[in-house]
C-alpha cells in the first residue's frame, strides 16, 4: 500500500510479552498487521477473532476481511490502536463536557479534512473503538467553540427545515429500486 502517512508511524511491537499478531484486510485489499493488545481496543474485531477461534498459531494465516473500512482509515486506526494499546482503561465519558485533554499526538493524527474525518468516524463506529470515538467526536465538537448559530450551520452543513422537508419530499417522490 502506498498511502503517505502524515503522522509518525507506530511500529508494531510486543515487548511486554510474546507477540501475537493478526492480519486485517481492508475493503480495498490492503493488508495490515496488528498486535493482540492493539486489536482488543476494537470490540468488533476482537469479537470476530474470538468467534473465528483464531490463535497465536493460526492468526497470520487467516487474515480478517473488513469490508466497511478502506485502507486509508484502517492505517489510521491501526496506528491509533498500537499507540494506545497499553493505556489504562478509562471510565466512560458521560455528559461531562470536555472532561479530558486530547493528547497532541492524537490531535495531529486527526488533523485531516472533514470528509476523511467523517469516513474515519463511520469506520470507528463500525469497529467500536471507544477511545478513538471519544477523540474524533471531541475534535468535531471543538469546531463549535465560540461560534454563532449561523456559523455552526455552515461548519456542520445543517440544512434548514425547508431544505430538510424538500429533501424528504424528493426522496419519497423518487422511484424505488423496482420502480
Amino acid at each position, binding site marked *: 500500500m502506498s498511502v503517505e502517512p502524515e503522522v509518525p508511524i507506530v511500529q508494531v511491537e510486543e515487548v511486554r510479552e510474546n507477540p501475537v499478531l493478526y492480519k486485517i484486510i481492508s475493503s480495498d485489499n490492503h493488508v495490515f498487521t496488528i498486535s493482540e493488545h492493539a486489536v482488543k481496543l476494537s470490540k468488533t474485531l476482537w469479537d470476530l477473532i474470538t468467534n473465528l477461534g483464531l490463535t497465536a498459531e493460526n492468526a497470520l494465516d487467516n487474515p480478517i476481511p473488513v469490508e466497511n473500512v478502506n485502507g486509508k482509515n484502517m492505517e489510521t486506526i491501526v496506528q491509533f490502536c498500537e499507540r494506545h494499546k497499553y493505556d489504562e482503561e478509562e471510565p466512560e465519558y458521560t*455528559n461531562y463536557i470536555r472532561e479530558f485533554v486530547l493528547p497532541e499526538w492524537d490531535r495531529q493524527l486527526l488533523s485531516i479534512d472533514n470528509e476523511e474525518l*467523517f469516513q474515519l468516524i463511520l469506520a470507528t463506529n463500525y469497529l467500536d473503538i471507544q477511545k478513538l470515538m471519544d477523540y474524533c467526536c471531541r475534535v468535531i*465538537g471543538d469546531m*463549535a467553540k465560540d461560534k454563532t448559530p*449561523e456559523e*455552526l*450551520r455552515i461548519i*456542520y*452543513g*445543517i440544512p434548514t427545515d425547508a431544505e430538510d422537508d424538500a429533501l424528504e419530499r424528493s426522496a419519497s417522490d423518487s422511484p424505488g429500486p423496482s420502480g
Partner: protein
Amino acid sequence: MTNPFPLLDLPTAAILHVVKSMDYGEFLNLSFLSKRAKKSIELMNLKSEELTVYIGDFVHMNMSIGTKRMEWKFYYCLKGNIIDGEDLLEESFENEEMDLENENELEEEEDEEIDYIEEDQDIKDIDEELEEFQDEQEVYELEAEEFALPDSVELLISDGVSSRAVWYMESLTMKDWIQHFMTIFHFSEIQHLDFTRNSSIFSIEEIKDSMIAINKLSVSSDTGFDVDYLLSNFHSKYLHLGLGVFETLKKPENVMIRNYDMLRIYLNRDHPSTITLDDLLFFNSKTIKVCEANWTAKSFNRFIKHWIKGSNPRMEMLNLLDFSEKEFIDTEILKGVRFMEIPADQTRWFRNQDGQLVAFEGGKDFYRQDGAKATIYNFGSYENFRCIAMCVWHPHCVVDPR
C-alpha cells in the same frame, strides 16, 4: 474553503457523542438551527432537576442538571418612559455591554433589529440623558415591551468553571423558549414560578399564555399586581403568599377554599391577624402553614373542637409559626379534649404531601369522631415565638416503623 462536516449524517450514536463533547451554549446554538438538529440534542436525554422562573422587571430562570447550574436571564427593552433616570442608565449600560460583546454577531445578522438602544450611543449620550432625567425629576411609569418577546437572552453556567452565552433572537418568543427547553431538558411543568418586584410591568394574560403547568406559585408583596386577578389566572399545587400579600386580597376566601397541596401564608406582624377561626375552618389545603397567625389558645382550642366534629377533612398538616402569645400552652389548646401524652423519646414518622418523612417526637394524640388520629406537637420556639404543628394521621401519611 473546507467542506462542512456533515454532522447530522453521522450515525445517531456518533451524533450523540459529538454533542456530548460540546458546551451547553454550543449545543443549544445547534438546537436552534433546525428540527432535525434539535432532535439530535434531545437524544442527550438531559433532565432538568430544578426549574424556577422568577418574574420581576426581567425574567430569570434557574435550572440544574447534575452538578451543572444554569441561569437564564431574559432581558426586555424598557420603553423610554422609565421610572427614573438611574434605571435607564443601568439598563442602558447592561445592554451596551452585551452589544459590545456581540458586535461581530450583530454585524453578521444585519437583519436582526435590536431597537432598545442605538448601537452608536456612547456613554456620553447616556450621561446626558441621565442628567436630563434628573433635572426634570419626573417619575415615569415603568412599562416593558411584550413579555412574549425578550430582546436578549443570557445564559450563565457554573460547574466549577463558569461560562456565558448570549442570544439575540428577535423572532423567538418566550413561549418558544420554554417549549424549546421542555423538549431539550425534558420537563413538563415549571416547578416554581415566583412573581417578584415590579412583575406587573408585564401583562398577566401574556405571562399566562407563555407558561406551562406550574407546581408551586409564589407571590411577593411588591409585584404591583392585583393579586386576586393574578391567582385567578394561575393554578398550582403549592401557593406561597409572601409577607403581607394575604392582607391585600379582596376575596381571601377564594384562596382558602382552593384545594392546594400546600398553602403557605406570611401574615404581616404589624397588623392584627386577618385570618380568624372562621377563616381557618374554610381552608381546604392538605398542608397549611401560617406565619404570624397571632391567634389565642382559646380560638385554636375551638378550631380543634370543630376539627373533631368533622371540619377540614382534607387537612394533613397545620403549621402555625411565630406564635406571639407567650402563655399559649398545649394544655390550653387541648382544654376539654381527651388526649394522650406520647413520651418525648418516642419518634413517629409522618409522610408529608411531598412524600418526605417528618419526625414527630412525643406530642399529644387525640381523635376525631370518625376515628382519625391527630397529634399536636410543639416543635420548638425561638425569640419567644412558639411554633405548633398539628398532623392528621391519614392512612397515606402513616409510615410503617419497620
